[in-house]
């Protein structure tokens, strides 16, 4: 199925969870937060939240700011 992560399309296996996606991104999972279709998915639910075709993900981190 196809999902979009930070506005880039990706092919991912059917039934992939948020945690599965995070694991493939080579990011420190502690440093990120994830939204699916504008809804924040709490870290504790990354494993149980299954994605559907067409889902839009935002993966954010903290950067320098004032």
């Amino acid at each position, binding site marked *: 199925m196809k999902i979009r992560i930070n506005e880039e399309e990706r092919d991912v296996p059917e039934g992939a969870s948020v945690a599965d996606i995070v694991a493939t991104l080579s990011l420190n999972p502690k440093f990120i937060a994830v939204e699916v279709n504008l809804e924040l998915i*709490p870290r504790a639910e990354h494993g149980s939240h299954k994605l559907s075709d067409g889902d839009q993900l935002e993966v954010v*981190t903290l950067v320098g700011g004032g």
Partner: protein
Amino acid sequence: MSLVETTTNDAPLVLGTHTLRSRLIVGTGKYDTLELMQQSLEASGSECVTVAVRREKLYDPTGRNLLDYIDFHRYTLLPNTAGCYNARDAVRTAKLGREILLGLENPGADWVKLEVLADTKTLLPDPVETVQACEQLVGLGFQVLCYTTDDPVIAKRLKEVGATAVMPAGSPIGSGQGILNPNNIRICLEYLKGEDPDYPVIVDAGVGTASDVAFAMELGVDGVLLNTAIAHAKEPVRMAHAMRHATEAGRLAFQSGRIPRRLYASASSPEDGVIDRTSN
């Protein structure tokens, strides 16, 4: 009591459930290198640093993360909603920042520097959207440190909807113009602290150099938040030292009570016993 004891005996800055000994809050943006940022934070003596929430760069796994350079057991992170131009985006951003800080077990997870801007040219706060966002965030359990204009009426509204602290701008973000309207800051202080002297008011934005910080503190604000004035100084670490001392100097001067201004001179040396003046 020595001067050093006077400084250290100052009451801490209380922001809701947070207590800070340093009254200087510094940003982490615009530094040439993360190492320079790290040294500048250290030199500033600050215990609280602001950070922004941004999209992760997914295809740069070797890219260094800011969080690798901040000891989040030492600094309380204050996530901001910079880059937001309406209440909805600000609330969304605040929730994302909280989620990251919860994962880091940083105490900053329960607060936010609310910033809702009007346009990209002036970066002036949008007061209407700011009040709406503040109210919503308070309802979601956030302690909101609210960046705003120096307008006393809006400042009062923000306190009424539950802002933990109101943070009027000295002048536009990154402009380095200092405190453009000290009278508005004075009225903000009167409105917000009149019947509630401990209510925190922090000057946020516009600082150019150390004297701007000292001046803000001399007006009686509880703290100063700045970023560019250190990060873009020729020598950021040295400027960070200056800002630290300016914060303390301004605070001490405010507590000491300045002399009134007068038009004419008042001799410091005794007028009596002056030897006879000679004529030319």
